[in-house]
């Protein structure tokens, strides 16, 4: 009998019928208390409640009818028990009417009978609750939800056999599978891991991650005989992807960039948010005055040590994005890492500066502030929707020397050239800002990196061409991304070094990790050591990469040029694009090779494609830049 009930309860929980019934008992409990004292044996709460309406309703309805009803209802009750509990709520409504007779016996009978009834319902209700809880937790961790559910059930039904639990869990799992498609992947991975590891929970996985890392760091001593490093790494990657919820590809990427111990720190740092930082707008106020004004509003803050204008917000009682000071343009919310490229760019007053990928304008307005609203600042962004926030920020912060264009950055030497400085904050995969946008963990793939690197290389070359090497004060190009892959960073800069007459100079920022000069099987120019990387776990800011280039001459080696006339022709042959992507999708290890290959094929194709009409290429081009541009024209 007990087993039956449990199964019933599970069924009820599944169908979520009890939702209506759940609030009913509680209400009745309240009303029941005074009546309960009258009855000699304190009956279960649910049953006592009907006795309350007794005096009122007894007047209205004759007794015999109610008795008949009673019997009928009882029969129904049993049938309900056996079949399903869908009618439960109705049942109890009916109970109110039933109980209009005052026979003690009858009452007691019903009590006992109803007790089981009640009990069952109670079970169902709880089961329902457990289900609810689980659903809430689903998104976070499947495992915990299941455990929690099983624990709940155990508490309620002490005598439940383990088989039943398994059954319920299975059913529950199924329903979740159907409900949440997103979770399916995680679930599968977990499932695999579980089957392999005989159902070990997350803390155990974490422990194993630590153990494996310890072993890997002292491999010669601690390894098990016959287990290769690759096996350990595979195990580690799988566990990290299980524990932190990354795609395996992404885990692989980071394990290649960081030593294993550091990688774990990195993954853990991505789970916490970076401190909120703002930048005082020196065009309108001073950092000291702003800090005083904000402290008066109940904001706890502290200046950023390495910056003249940054403030870290620790705690605030007001919305930091809606204070009068904010609306008056005295500061802008800006992550600490995005100060860095502007510091490296070091724009001077009365220069001409280009910001190629400007939205939403944090860096642009910082540049304007450093130029003290003199000279000419051209802010460009390809995305029309993001232009709005760019223009809004420019006006709010009182920038008066800027003109904003909504163009593809690659049109730039054609539209306007001869700048003193140029900032390329290239669109990237965003692997440095996972703490801001956890979706990146699963949504990004190798394909994204490849498309990004392609446009990044083009943007950087066009930025270099837009700058005048003979500028008395500048000739500086700063390339930055908020991503961490070597393909998007060092490889792009290295590509530019080969293609243009530029050299890497020190970023003048005195902290940060040195860039890679060699990475796996590729070797970059030794001066790439002067570029800087920033990591969440070491610098407590978003992951970032900054490279500062100095243009030596306006000559373009190899006789090729992205100058005004041939600028369009620089576009890559779509065929080579697809080729590269096909080969690279196989294994991530070879991705770097592919990109180098791609670079070569690109240059080879440049000469071939010179004759083709640009419009044709736009039609064929798979690059999203083309698409967005075409859309805009429409």
């Amino acid at each position: 009998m007990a087993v039956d009930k449990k199964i019933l309860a599970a069924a009820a929980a599944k169908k979520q019928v009890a939702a209506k019934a759940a609030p009913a008992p509680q209400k009745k409990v309240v009303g029941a208390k005074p009546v309960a004292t009258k009855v000699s044996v304190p009956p279960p709460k649910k049953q006592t409640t009907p006795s309350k309406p007794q005096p009122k309703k007894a007047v209205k309805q004759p007794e015999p009818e109610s008795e008949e009803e009673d019997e009928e209802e009882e029969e129904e009750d049993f049938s309900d028990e056996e079949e399903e509990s869908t009618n439960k709520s109705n049942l109890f409504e009916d109970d109110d009417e039933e109980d209009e007779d005052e026979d003690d016996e009858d009452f007691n009978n019903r009590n006992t009978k109803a007790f089981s009834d009640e009990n069952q319902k109670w079970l169902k209700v709880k089961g329902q609750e457990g289900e609810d809880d689980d659903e809430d937790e689903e998104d976070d961790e499947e495992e915990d939800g299941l455990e929690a559910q099983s624990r709940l059930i155990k508490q309620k039904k002490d005598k439940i056999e383990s088989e039943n639990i398994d059954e319920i869990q299975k059913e529950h799992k199924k329903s979740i599978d159907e409900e949440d498609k997103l979770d399916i992947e995680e679930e599968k991975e977990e499932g695999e891991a579980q089957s392999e590891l005989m159902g070990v929970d997350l803390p155990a996985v974490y422990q194993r991650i630590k153990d494996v890392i310890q072993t890997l760091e002292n491999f010669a001593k601690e390894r098990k005989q016959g287990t290769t490093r690759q096996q350990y790494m595979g195990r580690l990657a799988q566990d990290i992807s299980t524990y932190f919820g990354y795609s395996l590809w992404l885990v692989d990427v980071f394990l290649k960039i960081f030593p294993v111990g550091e990688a774990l720190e990195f993954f853990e740092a991505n789970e916490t948010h970076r401190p909120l930082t703002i930048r005082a707008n020196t065009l309108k106020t001073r950092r000291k005055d702003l800090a005083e004004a904000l402290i008066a509003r109940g904001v706890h803050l502290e200046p950023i040590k390495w910056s003249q204008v940054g403030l870290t917000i620790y705690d605030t009682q007001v919305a930091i994005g809606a204070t009068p000071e904010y609306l008056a343009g005295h500061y802008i919310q800006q992550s600490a890492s995005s100060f860095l490229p502007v510091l490296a760019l070091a724009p001077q007053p009365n220069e001409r500066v280009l910001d190629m990928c400007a939205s939403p304008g944090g860096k642009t307005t910082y540049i304007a502030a450093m130029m003290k609203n003199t000279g000419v600042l051209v802010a460009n962004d390809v995305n029309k929707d993001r232009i709005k926030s760019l223009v809004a920020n420019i006006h709010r912060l009182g920038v008066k020397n800027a003109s904003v264009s909504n163009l593809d950055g690659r049109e730039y030497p054609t539209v306007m050239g001869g700048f003193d400085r140029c900032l390329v904050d290239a669109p990237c995969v965003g692997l440095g800002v996972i703490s801001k946008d956890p979706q990146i963990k699963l949504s990004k793939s190798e394909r994204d990196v490849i498309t990004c690197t392609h446009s990044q290389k083009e943007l950087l070359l066009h930025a270099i061409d837009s700058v005048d090497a003979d500028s008395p004060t500048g000739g500086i190009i700063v390339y930055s991304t908020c991503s961490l892959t070597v393909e998007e960073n060092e490889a792009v800069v290295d590509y530019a070094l080969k293609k243009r007459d530029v050299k890497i100079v020190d970023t003048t920022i005195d902290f940060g990790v040195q860039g890679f000069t060699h990475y796996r099987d590729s070797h970059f120019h030794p001066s790439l050591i002067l570029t800087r990387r920033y990591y969440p776990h070491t610098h407590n800011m978003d992951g970032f990469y900054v490279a500062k280039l100095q243009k030596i001459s306006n000559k373009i080696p190899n006789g090729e040029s992205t100058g005004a006339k041939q600028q369009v022709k620089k576009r890559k042959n779509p065929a080579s694009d697809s080729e590269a992507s096909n080969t690279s999708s196989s294994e991530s290890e070879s991705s770097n090779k592919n990109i180098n290959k791609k670079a070569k094929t690109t240059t080879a194709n440049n000469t071939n494609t010179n004759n083709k009409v640009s419009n044709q290429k736009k039609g064929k081009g798979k690059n999203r830049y083309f698409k967005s541009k075409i859309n805009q024209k429409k």
Partner: protein
Amino acid sequence: MRPLTEEESKVFFEKLVKFIGKNVTLLIQRKDEPYCFRIQKNKVYYVSEEIMKRSQNIPRDSLASLGTCFGRFTKSGKFKLHITALDYLAQYAKYKVWVKPQSEMSWMYGNNLLKAGLGRITEDTPANQGVVLFTMTDIPIGFGVTAKSTHECRKLDPPALVVYHLCDVGEYLRDEETLF
């Protein structure tokens, strides 16, 4: 991008004079750099001539903004000042109103200013005069039109209207989609 026509200039400067009076000349004849007004997609921009010349390279459809936007011409040919002009209006305003701290937020949510929130007001401000509003710490937070003169304001009850709302800095958040 083009200079304003005579008709447009008339409408535009009439509006501007309501707020900054004769100081309009200071906008046009600057000592540091030649500045000019340009109209681009119905919006009027106040910009230095160098930036204006450089921006001529950018295709008209792609030019999203240059210098400072003062406002736009409506379809019926009227001129509407935008909050983005506040910097210059505040700099040259003839008549100013200071708002008490407790009424700042109310104003920035787009409400009119009541007598209760009136901190200070320029002497001899007439009724129906364009004024720029400041916080007590001299941060400009918008502009509007007075409902009563300074003299009348002294006798008013606290819930009485003092300044009609035209623009406030809250629009940077509220109207970002439509404003730019």
